[in-house]
């Protein structure tokens, strides 16, 4: 319980399917739902997607 913020790590099974992957830490997770940060990312992702769309037409 003391490490609830590390629950992603707890899902790793030693030498199992997922032992070699990476899991996000609490800050990375917080950023995913931080509205201000996500708004900035929203603008950037849109610009990137528009660029890809333009390059594809």
């Amino acid at each position, binding site marked *: 319980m003391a490490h609830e913020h590390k629950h*992603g790590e707890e*899902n*790793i099974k030693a030498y199992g*399917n*997922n032992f*070699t*992957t*990476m*899991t*996000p830490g609490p800050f990375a997770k917080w*950023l*995913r*739902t931080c*509205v201000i*940060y*996500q*708004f900035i*990312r*929203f603008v950037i*992702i*849109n610009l*990137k*997607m*528009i*660029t*890809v*769309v333009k*390059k*594809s*037409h």
Partner: protein
Amino acid sequence: MARLVVLGGGVSGHTAATFAAKWLGSAHEVVVVTPNSKWNWIPSNIWVGVGQMTAEDVTFDLAPVYAKAGINYKQAKALSINPEGKESSDKPFVTIEYTEAGREGENEEVEYDYLINATGPKLNFGATPGLGEGSQLGEHTVSVCTADHAAHASDELDKCIEKMKAGERQKFLIGTGHGMCTCQGAAFEYIFNIEHELKKAGVRDMADIKWISNESFLGDFGVGGLHMKAMGFAVSSKIFAESLFTERNVDWIIGAHVSKVESGKIEYELLDGSTGEENFNFSMLIPPFAGVGIKAFGKDGSDITDTMFAPNGFLKVDANYGAGAYENWKASDWPKTYQNPTYGNVFACGIAFAPPHPISKPMKSPNGTMIGPTPPRTGMPSGIMGKTVAHSICDRILKGDNAPLHEASMAEMGAACVASAGKGVFSGTAAAMTIYPVVPDFEKYPGTGRDTDYTFGEIGLAGHWIKHILHHLFMYKAKLNPGWTMIPE
């Protein structure tokens, strides 16, 4: 007056028909032949499949839209193409069979000057014993391939949630139902939406969720995987996908060909030749795709299906079908104009064109079973192809038979993908990705095969917002509301 006949009213066919009608005006005729009465924004079927949208939210009636566009709409399925006409006439035509209420089974010959085959796939549930019969979904699993399938899946999901609330543990198995499936992305999005809904319902701890797919590595997605710019690294989609699965505590089986489906159980074969079984209470398995089974006949009535179509039932276009082994594959094998090599007035786009070969490296088990993703031709590339083909045909009609054809190779175009996990504006997260180009070009981009300045992926709420916007934007565009041509494919 020239007549363009478009077979299919999905993303590719609808895009081609509506742009052609706009560019040609009333001086020429555009005919759409599709067995469906409704248009479906298929990416949002995922939200229907978890009860966050209804089938009505993701569909609309085609008839009024085509009436507005001046398109002659025939609710029917194409049976055959006669590209040389018949003995009494040189005019090429297609034979169609009406599916419209009141006209079921009625046949008609529709002559054309130009033909676009954009039928999409036959959902080949029958390829896996127990998954279904022919193109009909069976009773053991659910599907999100159509809006009605997805609504049924949502009902079944609700039943599982009720059981879990009553203390009964449930096993969810999501992925691909055959060794030669495509559309792993749809199953990928669905599994994380289910996971999110179970969490919301407070029953996540009562559920075991497992992924099963024909990918040789997690994150292949039918495009051989991709490398995305993240944290200063070019990170493989394998790491990206494995991380997401681990974080959400979803186990996986990969390199799997599902060989049999029974009530609550599947049997599968792996790339190493071993076999196994997996039980489930709820399973959504994507079926493999095949051509819809249109036949082709010569002027004398002889069967020329093999001339026009590849063995998998998809229409041959200007691709290099003789590339052979994986080591010989090149980006230039992929078609540019989507013109049939035998009949210059016939084109194919979207899933209906025969790809030259897979994008992912083909793999086979020691028993000889092919296990590997077939190439995706859906979404943004599908729309771009439709518009490109329409452009070429309109030029030929308006400027003459020698007008140059427009090009749109999947090896030179990108795609934007958003895989949601939930539908909330402030809850859940989505994976937003772009890939450029869709088909890797290892000569132009040595190493990863793609331009990592334009190939990226990240997880966050922003992706959810984009998914919401795309839903409304594309529904708006497909309905031909004011300014629809300004919205890119």
